[in-house]
């Protein structure tokens, strides 16, 4: 569908009674992409979505859809369609009438509406439910109807506000796959808001991680997961060990004096002049634990505080003399260290990266 358009946010700020909800966001959403705004509640992601849909106006900055600024246009003059968090299905209308609503408003003729609605029911696996009242369908079905009601008008941009938040885990997995399929088949631009990192990683072409009204990092799921740019992203998306370190001419010096080669790349590496305080980040699954005497790789010595076995993996949590918490997550084959013993937590330098302190 060629109607799909990209979305550009340029320096968007939203101030509510002195409180800065969105503190200057610039973002380029390529046409046809699936972009997720990921962040904790209150980070400004929903406000951003409401500004794209027209239910809120930016205090300053510009929002462009397909190159044309939409600032100042009310929601009913914007070519966006929203899947609301609580679905917001019209309770006095049937499933079919809900789906047909946007097409009726667009003055499409009746046979065409019937055909489009029938095709959408089919596509969403809702065939046969068209005549039901919305109070007579399940939560998962309501979710599909909400999705269909927005998709059927073929908007330039589809907006999804925590689309799967109200579903139980099993249904959520199923709908993730469904959403991905719909995005692929329809080729529309999707912008979703979620606080669920797994959902964001699964669905998106690009993720914008937000915190306190700002975008902390914008990249592919692989980039965001493998090389988080900030402490916040490293912590919010997956788990990370964060070790304070100092840059030296020939490598890194950790808190206890351990020297490691400087990892290549990483968002913090560029600015890491000698003497600079940085944070070394490494994922728990890249960390191995050895009894203190048998360690072959350089690593950090830490007292083992907890050993948690979960079947597929074993999690070992330790704390260094300086108080840094370290976590290792390894397939649980090797003999685990004793709780309370001193162990070496080590990792391949290539698996770690540097972020600003």
């Amino acid at each position, binding site marked *: 569908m060629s109607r799909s358009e990209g979305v550009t946010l340029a320096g968007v700020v939203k101030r509510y009674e002195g409180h800065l909800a969105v503190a200057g966001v610039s973002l380029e959403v390529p046409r046809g992409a699936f972009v997720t705004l990921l962040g904790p509640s209150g980070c400004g992601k929903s406000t951003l979505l409401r500004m794209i849909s027209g239910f809120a106006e930016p205090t300053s900055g510009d929002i462009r859809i397909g190159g044309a600024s939409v600032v100042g246009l009310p929601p*009913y003059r914007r070519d966006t369609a929203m899947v*609301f968090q609580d679905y*917001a299905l019209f*309770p006095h209308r049937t499933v079919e009438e809900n789906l047909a*609503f946007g097409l009726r*408003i*667009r003055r499409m003729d009746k046979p065409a509406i019937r055909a489009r609605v029938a095709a959408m029911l089919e596509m969403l696996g809702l065939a046969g439910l068209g005549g039901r009242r919305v109070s007579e369908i399940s939560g998962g079905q309501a979710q599909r109807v909400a999705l269909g009601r*927005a998709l059927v008008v073929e908007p330039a941009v589809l907006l999804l506000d925590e689309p799967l938040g109200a579903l139980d885990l099993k249904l959520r997995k199923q709908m993730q796959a469904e959403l991905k399929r719909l995005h692929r088949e329809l080729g529309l631009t999707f912008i979703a808001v979620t606080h669920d990192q797994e959902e964001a990683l699964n669905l998106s072409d690009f993720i914008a991680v937000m915190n306190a009204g700002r975008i902390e990092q914008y990249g592919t799921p692989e980039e965001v997961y493998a090389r988080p740019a900030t402490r916040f992203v490293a912590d919010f998306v997956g788990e990370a060990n964060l070790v304070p370190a100092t840059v030296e001419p020939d490598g890194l010096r950790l808190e206890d004096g351990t020297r490691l080669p400087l990892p290549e790349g990483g968002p913090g590496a560029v600015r890491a002049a000698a003497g600079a305080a940085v944070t070394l980040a490494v994922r728990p699954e890249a960390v191995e634990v050895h009894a203190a005497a048998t360690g072959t790789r350089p690593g950090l010595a830490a007292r083992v505080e907890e050993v948690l076995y979960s079947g597929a993996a074993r999690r070992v949590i330790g704390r260094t003399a300086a108080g840094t918490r370290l976590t290792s997550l390894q397939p649980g084959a090797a003999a685990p260290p004793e709780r309370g013993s001193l162990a070496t937590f080590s990792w391949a330098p290539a698996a770690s990266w540097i972020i600003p302190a």
Partner: protein
Amino acid sequence: MSAPGPAARRARRLAAAGLAPLLLWQCLFFLVPVGILAVISVWSMENYRLTPDLTLANYTAALGNAAVWRSLLLSVRTALFVTVACGLLAYPIAYFIARKVGRRLRLVLLVAVVAPFWISIVMRIAAWRILLGEHGVINQFLVGTGLIEAPLGILLYSPLSTMIGLVYAYLPLYVLPLYAAIDRIEQSWIDAAKDLNAGPLRAFWEVTLPLSLPGLVVGAVFCFIFGLGEFVTPALLGGGKQLLLSQIIQDQFQRRQDWPGGAAIAMVLMAMVMGLLAVSMRWLRRASGERP
């Protein structure tokens, strides 16, 4: 199925005890009088004495009486007018209270809507007589400002004053159910309509109005039924030039001393009201999504 536990039994007894005064009240002051009325309506008058026999003559007489039909028609017309006028006035008021004001002001406004009920209807109607009379506040103001030369006689003791009094008396009855219905409409439903490119008017027409329908119907039923049997307001403000059905009934009882005849007309009026209630309740239940 196990027997209900002691807690459940106690709760049920408590509920019964709580409802008992209400049921007793209803029996004493509604069912018993209506029962007496029903019995009297099939009795007859002989030599100005109530005579207990079984006759339908009162009903045939009532239904064959042109004056009864005229006043019934007038009652229906009055009630219809009052219902429509109250609905048109109540909607913006209820909409404003439910959707446009903050929580605190909303409470104040709701209390203001209900407040007139705390004063007797007779007192309130008397106040209208002071406002509408030939030397009343409105006429004195209009004459004083030179807008009219002589006081308007039509303001009091006319169909107009009856209508004004009735609309005033019933407006709260319409505002409250409408407010309750409009208050239940989720903002996100209206947002969804706008998001799908319906302008504000279209969104109102497609979402807000249909979802206020239960409130509109309940308010209309209240107004119409109360209007149909209204006695005080037309008696005090209407000047007795036009006889509504309730006044005919009163006339039968008091002036003509024909209790069975009055009772028969009253029973006819009540049957109409009950029928109307039954129909509107069924409609409401269907509209609110209950399966028949």
